[in-house]
């Protein structure tokens, strides 16, 4: 039987500053995984096409990575992802420039769950936000729990949705803080193009203690990605509901310019 031709290899270079910034927001295991990945890439002289996937033009949570590629770290089932931009240079061959690294956004369907959605009556939190111009997408704290970050609970993740591109500074970091009712949230993770912000409650009652049906208004303030673009704020209402879904809830908030 003839050998299957090897997939082509494309050189990979790293945007060290951006990757270093991303690594500060992840546990040590993320760095170890990336170090191993980089050694593999060095040995192979690049990354095989067979380990690449195209990014969606717009992800489910608002990321916009048209023209970008990704790989999993470690391949093929790693929980981390590396985002790469194919780049052209006048004298060098086509290459990939790695510029963002973080936890993958696993598809719900791929997650093992023993819960029956229709029997799951655990009170969950939904944020009801003016959808006119969603800027931040909050996902429920299941994401952190699934990632084994129990110590961070209650926690939600958020992603700046349009701010990055609208200010032409798509991978720059930006601090984000939020106050939701009695809860005070602060970003544990500044914005990166590909991976979510993470928010953590520092004070206030546990979310689980709120009775079903409780609604509390909240405001979100977002330090800009670029300092001179001005702080943004948004408001909405967080409602505690009894959910029939076992998957994480997604909430959106509007940030006013």
């Amino acid at each position, binding site marked *: 039987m003839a050998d299957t031709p090897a997939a082509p290899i494309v050189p990979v270079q790293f945007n060290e500053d951006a990757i270093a910034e991303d690594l500060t927001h992840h546990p040590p295991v993320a760095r170890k995984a990336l170090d191993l990945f980089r050694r593999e890439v060095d040995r192979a002289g690049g990354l095989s096409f067979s380990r690449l996937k195209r990014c969606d033009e717009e992800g*489910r949570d608002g990321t916009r990575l048209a023209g970008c590629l990704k790989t999993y770290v470690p391949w093929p089932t790693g929980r981390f992802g590396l985002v790469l931009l194919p780049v052209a240079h006048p004298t060098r061959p086509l290459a990939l420039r790695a510029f963002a690294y973080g936890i993958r956004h696993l598809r719900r369907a791929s997650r093992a769950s023993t819960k029956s959605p229709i029997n799951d009556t655990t009170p969950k939190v939904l944020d009801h936000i003016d959808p006119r111009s969603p800027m931040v997408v909050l996902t429920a704290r299941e994401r952190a729990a699934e990632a084994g970050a129990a110590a961070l609970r209650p926690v939600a993740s958020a992603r700046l949705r349009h701010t990055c591109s609208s200010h032409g*500074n798509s991978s720059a970091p930006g601090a984000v803080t939020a106050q939701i009712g009695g809860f005070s949230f602060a970003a544990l993770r500044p914005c990166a193009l590909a991976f979510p912000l993470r928010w953590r409650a520092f004070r206030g009652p546990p979310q689980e203690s709120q009775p079903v049906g409780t609604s509390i208004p909240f405001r979100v303030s977002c330090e800009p990605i670029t300092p001179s673009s001005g702080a943004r704020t948004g408001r909405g209402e967080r409602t505690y509901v009894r959910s029939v879904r076992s998957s994480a809830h997604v909430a959106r908030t509007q940030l006013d310019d």
Partner: protein
Amino acid sequence: MEPAHVTLTGDLSGDYVVEDRRPDGRVLLRPDLSVKAMLARHGERKLTPEEFEQHFGQLPTDGEG
């Protein structure tokens, strides 16, 4: 208003964004981590959509974003 960008040469070099200009003249800088700066730093450019399709159009997506 776009933030001020500076390019440093010397003991420190590279592209930076002015984060704060203080009354006493001090300036707070942070590295410019934007894709635009990244490309400029290395003399690179993004592929055109046609080039991207030519080289990578056959690759799969995974629905994760």
